[in-house]
């Protein structure tokens, strides 16, 4: 009797997201230098680093808001192929609207502050071509419910809401079309600790329920530790260390990572 062993799952599945050798400079400043990143389906990739380390730039590129000087970006999805940085404006907008959700640190970037909260979520669906009022209303309500937004404030404009609530509206907007990839740019920075915990709770539950692939950028190691499966540590536009979350936090190899972990503890 021969025993056949399957290769570990991680070798069998193709990464959903892969960014290869991306470089970007603003004049003399190198924001990113040959950065590569991958994320497997259903996985949470955490990116840590100090301010100016290029982590937000990388996230903006994953949302196709910015195009690098060189590099490749692919998403392993049906009917998405080739280097996404080469897409035209039109295709890029459609891809961002339907396949990628993003939550910004500053809700003013992601929301129309004076429109209703449900309208903000509905906008996403409208861009994707939904034209039935009843469907819009139902889908917006479902998305807001999933992000644990109090439904009695469904039609309140975000400007009247608290910071935590605004992040929930952003989150609902990001997941309204059930995207394959959810990008989170410091989603809890600026919230007080108890609200931060609630928002993280929601994110964790969403991740478990929907098996959504997430990339989360934060300078807060606590946030990364709570959510991420794998971690990338960035500094001055370069990746200094990458690996499983436990590995990075328990046994940091690079001097900078050690410093970072110790500063936290």
């Amino acid at each position: 009797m021969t025993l056949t062993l399957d290769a570990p799952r991680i070798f069998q599945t193709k990464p959903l997201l892969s960014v290869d050798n991306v470089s970007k400079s603003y004049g003399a400043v190198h924001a990113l230098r040959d950065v590569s990143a991958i994320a497997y389906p259903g996985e949470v990739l955490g990116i840590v680093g100090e301010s100016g380390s290029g982590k937000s730039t990388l996230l903006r590129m994953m949302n196709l808001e910015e195009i690098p000087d060189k590099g490749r970006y692919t998403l392993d999805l049906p009917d998405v192929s080739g280097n996404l940085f080469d897409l035209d404006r039109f295709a890029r907008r459609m891809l961002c609207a339907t396949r990628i959700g993003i939550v910004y640190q500053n809700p003013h970037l992601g929301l129309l502050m004076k429109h209703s909260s449900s309208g903000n979520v509905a906008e996403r669906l409208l861009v994707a071509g939904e034209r039935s009022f009843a469907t819009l209303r139902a889908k917006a309500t479902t998305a807001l419910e999933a992000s644990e937004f109090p439904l009695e404030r469904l039609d309140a404009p975000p400007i009247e809401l608290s910071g935590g609530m605004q992040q929930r509206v952003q989150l609902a907007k990001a997941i309204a079309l059930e995207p394959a990839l959810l990008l989170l740019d410091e989603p809890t920075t600026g919230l007080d600790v108890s609200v931060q915990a609630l928002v993280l709770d929601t994110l964790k539950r969403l991740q478990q329920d929907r098996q959504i692939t997430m990339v989360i950028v934060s300078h807060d190691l606590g946030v990364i530790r709570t959510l991420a499966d794998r971690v990338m540590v960035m500094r001055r536009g370069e990746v200094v260390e990458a690996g499983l979350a436990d590995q990075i936090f328990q046994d940091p190899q690079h001097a900078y990572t050690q410093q970072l972990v110790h500063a936290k503890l």
Partner: protein
Amino acid sequence: MTLKTLTKPWEAMSYGFLDGSAKREMRRKMLKSVAVPGCQMPYASREVPMARGWGTGGLQVSLTLVNPETRVKVIDQGADDSVNAASIRRFIARVAGTPTTMDTLKADLIQSRHRIPEEVLSEDQILVLQVPNPEPLRPVQPNMSIARQMHADADYGRMWLQLYEQIVRSGRVMQGASYPSLVNGRHVMTPSPIPRWDVPKLHMAKHLTILSAGREKRIYAVPPFTRVEPLVFSDVPYKVEDHAKLTCHRSGATGFFMNEIPQDDGSSTHEVSDSEWGVKAIRVRDGEKVALGETWYKDGEMPQ
């Protein structure tokens, strides 16, 4: 041959007030706007002896299109006899020597603000609408550079967001005038401040409609037999104003767009907004022989 025979005698102003180059530019921009229905074309918008915002855009189009045989009708808020309408009509007649009329059927060129006449316009008529704000995207995108890019991409999702907000806040679409409409399946335009009642009149109409905004320097057109579809949700149908059952207290006409006239006791009466249609109805009632045109709305309903 002397120089005098070759040159024109001195005149106080050119025919139709605007000089030749101004008219040539207007003509070119009008042709362009007819070629791309609903697309806003920028133009220079010359000075006319009237303040910007009082119909200078429409007036420049009218002055360019008239010749001494063009019969001109001018409407303001549905009425031919309001001050603004009367002054514009008199001005065009004075500088271009055109005959004027109040009868929709006899007019060749109709310049209007707020209304499209109740009688159906024919192939040989031109409707010129004065537009205060030509940009339908302005309420949802204050940055005009981005708005132009949205037009180029036909990225109109946010227009529905505006309607969504109105339904959420008030239970129905509140957009009373300038109802955003998709022209020829491509460009969204604001059809000047005409009421919702008048928008279906533009759909597959036989006449040419030119919309011109003098202050904003934009011109766009709805050529004859062009689709004009008001933006709606698939499950919330387009509704015109609830005027089908109202009766004009002066002419007794029913089933047309009405002006509400508040009374001392708090109630209100109504009169037909299209004043010439009201006048005709009164003359018919008094037994006069009047040529009545076919109307867009029949018994308060627009036939499909």
